């Protein structure tokens, strides 16, 4: 690898690209060349850096200075001042604390522990060389050449790794089922259909360090004896698709995919499948149906996918984050891994606080960290000096918790983190409005198979539409509460079972706010337009 005295990381996440990040990158490259610096300075594209509000953004290393809202017009100045003369362009420097996501692993906050995210923002995701230089594909080599498939499974089992998509099923056990199942063909599926609002960690991994996932899948394939893998990426994640596909091509060229990988006899290849953006397809059986070209509808279990999955064949379905953990466990050993986290939740978890926090982004912490550590410690607390009100754990399907929960620890024994989203509300926000948003999401995403969810989610939206238009009544609250309980008890799959959870959890915490809407026809936060007459309410 050639030596460069400086690296410039350009955020080419979807949001940034929409705001001209590609033009910015080209301009930077051109300018650097014009100044004859192209042998000394390298421009690197990275995935989203977690600076959603400040893109296009670049980070200049070794200093680690972040410039936000950079335009093409700023390029000449940055190159001239910073890169030639070593003077930072202070008017563009990202104010506030630098989001930890773009810090290297060594100098991130003590509470943050980067395992899966260690390469993000550090290496060029399009360069397999850089990945390898950071220790990439070492795990694959170790697993395929020094371990038996049974040993790999035993190692994963011993590590205590559990699924990171929200359900938390032990990964090693899943692999074991598939390994033991009969089938001429077995599949590894990476579930990258990150559909729940507020979650964007998987995208970051795919955009910033896709080889990690590939490696996880190869090891899984070796362990269970699979021949074919699919990465099911939601269609909207164009950059993820592009980066992942590029990484697959390179891996294939280098013989890391294909036949007889590393002389181990394993033949395995991976294909990217673009989902059509239905949330239900994140549910594993619906995902299978969708991959098979059928309607994305959840299926009854049994049969379970580990024995009867894709095309009826034994199939491992793992979340992106889960698979990304695998190489680290293989390299560092199950002991190392199982020492991180709590009794029941091993390892690290990636959180994505967003909403009214100072630094929305992606943070990796050991299980057991408190909610306060993540929201106040890493995400910088509430922005603009406002007060914290509540946080929706995991996204619309999670529970809403308030102040009192800030010191609870994030792990399966205490406050379940779900997939990792933390949607934070400050004191000026309306809880009714937030839950209405959640309700709309579910009513839109229900597959329509079972009555409680299909009808219940729709009724829920209708109620909220009325309430936020000043047309509610006190009895409504009880009726909807009853409806939500029934949905939770009787829906066929998780979508319907969780669709009313946020609402139900919000009632005891914010009953007054509901009553203000329903009885006084007033939105305390002034967000809901309460003055619509009944007829105008669209239902």
């Amino acid at each position, binding site marked *: 690898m050639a030596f460069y005295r400086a690296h410039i990381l350009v955020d080419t996440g979807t949001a940034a690209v929409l705001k001209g990040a590609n033009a910015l990158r080209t301009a930077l490259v051109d300018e650097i060349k014009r100044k004859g610096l192209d042998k000394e300075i390298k421009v690197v594209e990275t995935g989203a850096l977690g600076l959603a509000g400040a893109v296009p953004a670049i980070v200049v290393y070794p200093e680690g200075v972040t410039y936000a809202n950079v335009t093409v017009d700023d390029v000449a100045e940055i190159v001239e001042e910073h890169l030639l003369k070593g003077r930072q362009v202070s008017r563009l420097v990202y104010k506030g604390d630098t989001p930890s996501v773009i810090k290297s692993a060594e100098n991130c906050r003590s509470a943050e522990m980067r395992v899966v995210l260690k390469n993000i923002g550090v290496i060029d995701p399009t360069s397999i060389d850089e990945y390898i230089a950071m220790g990439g594909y070492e795990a694959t080599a170790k697993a395929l050449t020094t371990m038996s498939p049974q040993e790999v499974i035993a190692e994963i089992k011993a590590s205590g790794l559990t699924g990171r998509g929200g359900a938390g099923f032990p990964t090693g056990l899943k692999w074991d089922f598939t390994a033991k199942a009969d089938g001429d063909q077995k599949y590894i599926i990476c579930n990258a259909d990150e559909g729940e609002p507020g979650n964007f960690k998987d995208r970051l991994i795919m955009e910033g360090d896709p080889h990690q996932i590939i490696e996880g899948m190869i090891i899984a394939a070796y362990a269970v004896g699979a021949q074919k893998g699919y990465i099911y990426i939601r269609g909207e994640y164009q950059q993820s698709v592009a980066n992942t596909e590029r990484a697959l091509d390179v891996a294939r060229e280098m013989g890391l995919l294909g036949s007889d990988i590393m002389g181990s006899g394993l033949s395995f290849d991976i294909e990217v499948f673009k989902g059509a953006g239905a949330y239900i397809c994140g549910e594993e059986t619906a995902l299978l149906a969708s991959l098979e070209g059928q309607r994305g509808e959840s299926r009854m279990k049994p049969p379970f996918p580990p024995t009867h999955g894709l*095309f009826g064949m034994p199939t491992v379905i793992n979340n992106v984050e889960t698979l990304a953990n695998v190489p680290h466990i293989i390299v560092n050993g199950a002991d190392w891994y199982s020492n991180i986290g709590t009794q029941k939740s091993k390892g690290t978890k990636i959180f994505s606080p967003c909403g009214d926090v100072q630094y929305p982004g992606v943070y990796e912490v050991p299980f057991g960290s408190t909610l306060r550590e993540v929201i106040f410690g890493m995400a910088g607390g509430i922005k603009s000096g406002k007060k914290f009100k509540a946080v929706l754990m995991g996204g619309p399907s999670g529970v809403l918790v308030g102040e009192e929960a800030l010191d609870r620890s994030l792990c399966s024994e205490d406050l379940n983190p779900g997939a990792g989203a933390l949607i934070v509300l400050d004191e000026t926000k309306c809880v009714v409005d937030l839950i209405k948003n959640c309700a709309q999401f579910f009513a839109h995403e229900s597959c329509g198979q079972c009555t409680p969810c299909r009808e219940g989610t729709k009724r829920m939206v209708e109620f909220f539409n009325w309430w936020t238009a000043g047309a509610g009544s006190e009895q409504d609250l009880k009726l909807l509460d009853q409806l939500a309980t029934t949905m939770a008890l009787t829906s066929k799959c998780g979508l319907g079972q969780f669709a009313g959870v946020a609402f139900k959890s919000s009632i005891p915490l914010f009953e007054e706010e509901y009553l203000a809407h329903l009885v006084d026809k007033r939105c305390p936060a002034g967000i809901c337009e309460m003055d619509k007459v009944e007829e105008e309410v669209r239902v």
Partner: protein
Amino acid sequence: MPKVIIDGIEYEVAEGRNMLEAVIDNGLDLPYFCWHPGMGSVGACRLCAVRLYKDESDTKGKIAMACMTPAKEGTRISIKDPEAMEFRRFVIEWLMTNHPHDCPVCDEGGHCHLQDMTAMSGHVYRRFRFKKRTYTNQYLGPFITHEMNRCIQCFRCVRFYRDLAGGRDFNTFGSRNRVYFGRQSDGVLESEFSGNLAEVCPTGVFTDKTSARHYTRKWDLRTAPSVCVHCGLGCNIIPGQRYGTMRRVETRFNGDVNGYWICDRGRFGYEFSYGALKGGDGDIDEAKKLLNEANGIVGVGSPRASLESNYALQKLVGVGQFCTGLSAFEQEAAAAYINVFQTGSRRMPSLAEVESADVVVILGVDPTGEAPMLDFAIRQAMRKAPIEIARKLNIPDWDANAVINALHEAKGKLYMAAPWSMKLKEIAAETAQVEPAMIPDFAREIASDQANGLAATIAADLAKARKPLIVTGLSAGADTIRAAADLADSVIGKGRDCGLFVTVPEANTMGVAMLGGACVQEAARKSESGEADTLVVLENDLSRRLNPSDFDSLVKSVKNLIVLDCIATETTKAASALIPVTTVFDSEGTFINNESRAQRYFSVSPPKEGLAQAWTRIRDLGGFTQWSSCEDILRELAAGKPIFAPALAAAPFADWRTEADQKIARSPHRFSGRTAKDANWTINEPQTANDTQTPLSYSMEGDQNPPAESSLIPRFWWPGWNSNAATNKFQIEVGGGLHGGNPGIRLLAVQGKLSETQCPKSPERPGPNEEAREIWLVPRPYIYGSEELSRRGRAVAELIPPAEAIIHPQTAEIYGLENGQMVEFYTKDGQKLSLPIRVEDSVAMRVAIIPVGFPETRGIIAPDIARIS
């Protein structure tokens, strides 16, 4: 048998049931939508919720779906649990927020499962106030009306249409509360079983479009147990009438034959009855006179008339002068079939038993066109064949979607050899398009030790099958039937439980074949040779079986042609004396289906003025005063021909009464128009016709539900169960057989010894001579158009394909023919046929496939060699 506890009381259930079935099996009520006894559970509607307890000490329990809960020893549920009841009420309330409540104008009203379940669940008050969602409906063809606003999203329709019937042009579209069931765009439903949508849909989304033209509520329909007349399978039906005219046909469950389903020809073909001959134009006196003056009489029976009418005619003209009404080709094939039936050790499965086959070989027949429900049964067989895969995973058979997922693409093996490629090809492992004369040879090759290619593949699969089945039919000819039987025997010889299923073209083909007599060609010969100057023809259009020139010369040569029929045909046109008789819907009698099952059918209404049942007219002609009812004829026949004796037990006789000494009422309790039931022709209130001939009454007087006498069930109805879901209440266990046994009795028994090879080698038959521009002319049955009666119905007529001769592209090239070109075919006996050509590669070489039973192809019912112009 496991014992389960329902609301504290112990009940027994059969092995392998779910709790919803356990509840209904034991006569209790629990509402449901998405489960269907013929389709299993999917747990979608969530209506069958109960409280499920872990064990005796569990007082909390949890809400669970009964239909998804296996009924194991000790399973403990509560139906009456307040929370479960509340939830069920809730489900209906939700569904009702969108349901349009348009019962008054809905064709489902009065036999609607949604109405019943709403009442059963106790939803009475609507607490939600929002707008209902609405949809645009589709045109789905002449049979089925689509009214999506009524949908409650139970997914039954799509499961029936795709999973069971194998249709591809119908699906679920959209998601959330916009889920839509229909086609990609407007158009005729492609499935031959689409009419069942009207029965599986628990609401009025899919309803019978033909019935809507003269709609009557179920409570105003007079109904009787009947048997479908439109092919030889003998599916059980319930025809419904009001004011003496047909309003609709529904399935009559028979666990040995058609189960819950019938085909669209059987359901919608009834419309032919609107064009039936009216009374008043009868020449009974003239006929008597002609008979008295006759110099030699030949009687021509009919495969679409009852056994009793045929026997009456045989008696009228004498055994030696009786002709079965079958053509020589059919007759030979029928004789071969009966012989094969009685001289083998192979299974001769019922239609229901076909569903358990795992390897099926079809030889020369087209189930879809000829015996549509056989197509359906084969689809079920292929679908269920690999069920062991699911069982190994501990998935119960009723867990429908889990079974589908576990089985995935796995299915049974279906092979077929015929001159054309049939619709079942879509689920076949492999097919061969072969010339008709090659089919017996193909069967023999499979049976031989020197099979090659496809024959070898088939032989190998048959040899390892669990329940192999060979399917053929009379239309494939005697030689194929014998070869098929030999093949079945050879598979049995390899230690496999091989079955043979043979289709016959018409409802009573087997009846006349067993009665015996000459063929139609022989009757024509007798007439032309002057041996007989008078012909008595019973419900038979001779022009369908004689070639046009023979028919014309017969009409010319015969002095007196006495015709009894319910429809106007070429033969009735030529009659010297025409005696109109009632259709099957207003007649009593016995049909013998293809597996020799004798099934009794009953008239729905008394004959209208000037009309009478055929047997009574023959009785009058012959002065057989000893017969006061159709039963008397059957008794006499059974006494004289013991082979028919078991048929006596096919249904009870006229003196049968329920325990409460009652007859069975053809009209339901709530028949609202009692005093006006004949208002179409008289405003007086006449005495209700008294039925002395059967155990049924024409009025509402009598028992409504004879669960112990399945052959007399006039309709499926039960208190609180107005839709056909009431069938549950008539079954020993839901989905299983009816109380008192399924209707019908088999007459022929398999003898139990392996037959000697019937026909070791096909007789040499020269194929068509290409030089002389010869080609095989092969008649093919179409579901719509080939059957004589149904093609006269308005809705069926809309779907009759154009009469064309289909040839292979290479054949077209050899003979220099083009698509669309009009071509003349000259058959060996000099008949000329003009048909447009359609070039398609789905047919064998050197054959021209033509539709059978169409006016354009009159008289051609067997493959023949013809010369092309």
